[in-house]
């Protein structure tokens, strides 16, 4: 079991993910430079937080064309598990692996604080360690995390059990309090909060451990 962690110029949570997975849980990880195309031997890929390619044009807009992500799309289509955290969630929407888009927080503030989230795991393989309706605390750290989708699309996602994480107190104006989304098959998860920053008791809670520990199950 090896976890790949994508590294773009401008990623800044890649090492946090490695620490959470390898340091806290003993899951071997391998960094994937953005120009790499070899995903052999990986069982899951994380697209971490940060500011890929400086977030020029739009968050995730340039990253979408990275060679490594062409392989990640194929990997996801084969059923490989993909997790996009924060900037990684923005990248997944730009790639079209998840619907909708992430826009500027409604109050324009960069928000950096612990947030309570309600989990509805549904079919999402990353969240099988959590109970339906369980409340967990993950930190958020974003300026552009306001989820945006058409009303009918949101209803469809909801009906299909893909809105797997909601804010208990919506911090950024996301429609439907959406904090995280899964694809229909459940192998791809994108979320604005940072589960990797909730894995080491030394830095606060450990609610995020079970998300990464799902790889061990």
């Amino acid at each position, binding site marked *: 079991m090896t976890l790949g962690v994508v590294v773009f110029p401008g990623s800044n949570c890649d090492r946090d993910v490695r620490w959470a997975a390898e340091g806290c849980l003993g899951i071997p990880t391998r960094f994937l430079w953005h120009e790499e195309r070899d995903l052999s031997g990986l069982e899951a890929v994380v697209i971490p937080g940060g500011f890929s390619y400086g977030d020029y*044009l*739009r968050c995730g*807009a340039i990253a979408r*064309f990275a060679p490594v992500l062409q392989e990640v799309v194929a990997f996801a289509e084969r059923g490989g598990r993909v997790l996009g955290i924060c900037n990684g969630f923005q990248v997944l*929407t*730009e790639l079209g692996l998840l*619907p*909708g*888009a992430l*826009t*500027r*927080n*409604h*109050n*324009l503030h960069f928000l950096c604080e612990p947030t309570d989230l309600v989990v509805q795991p549904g079919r999402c393989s990353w969240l099988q360690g959590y109970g339906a309706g369980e409340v967990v605390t993950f930190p958020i750290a974003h300026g552009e995390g*306001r989820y*945006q*989708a*058409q009303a009918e699309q949101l209803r469809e996602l909801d009906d299909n059990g893909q809105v797997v994480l909601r804010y208990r107190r919506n911090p950024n*104006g996301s429609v439907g309090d959406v904090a995280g989304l899964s694809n229909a098959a459940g192998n791809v998860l994108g979320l604005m909060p940072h589960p990797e920053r909730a894995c080491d008791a030394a830095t606060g809670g450990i609610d995020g451990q079970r998300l990464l520990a799902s790889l061990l199950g």
Partner: protein
Amino acid sequence: MLTVQGARRREGDHSHRDQRHRAAEAGLPRFNNPRGAQVPLFSARVLVSLRPSVLDPAGEATRAAAARLGVDGVSRLRIGKAVDVELEAPDAATARQQLELLSDRLLANPVIENWTLELRDGAAAEA
């Protein structure tokens, strides 16, 4: 406003293409173009704006500042982007097709944004 500028470029433009054209004029071979064939250059401006249904908090903050400046009565202020593009293409139809692809797939995210392509011949394509 679709212009074909060919080899002759404006004064004060120091792009790498300009340097190549100057090299051609000086009798030097152009990179990747040994016959020195002239490829028409098209220019366009792509305007990207948030869809009307999408909240624009930066626009709202700017609107509030307008009132503080003493400019009253600003009832709507939305912030978008203008992207100036110059493109080499064999003909106008190809240029337009390439610019539309660029606008729709890279410059704008159609989930949240609309785009308008301004060409210098006065025609405009809209998505």
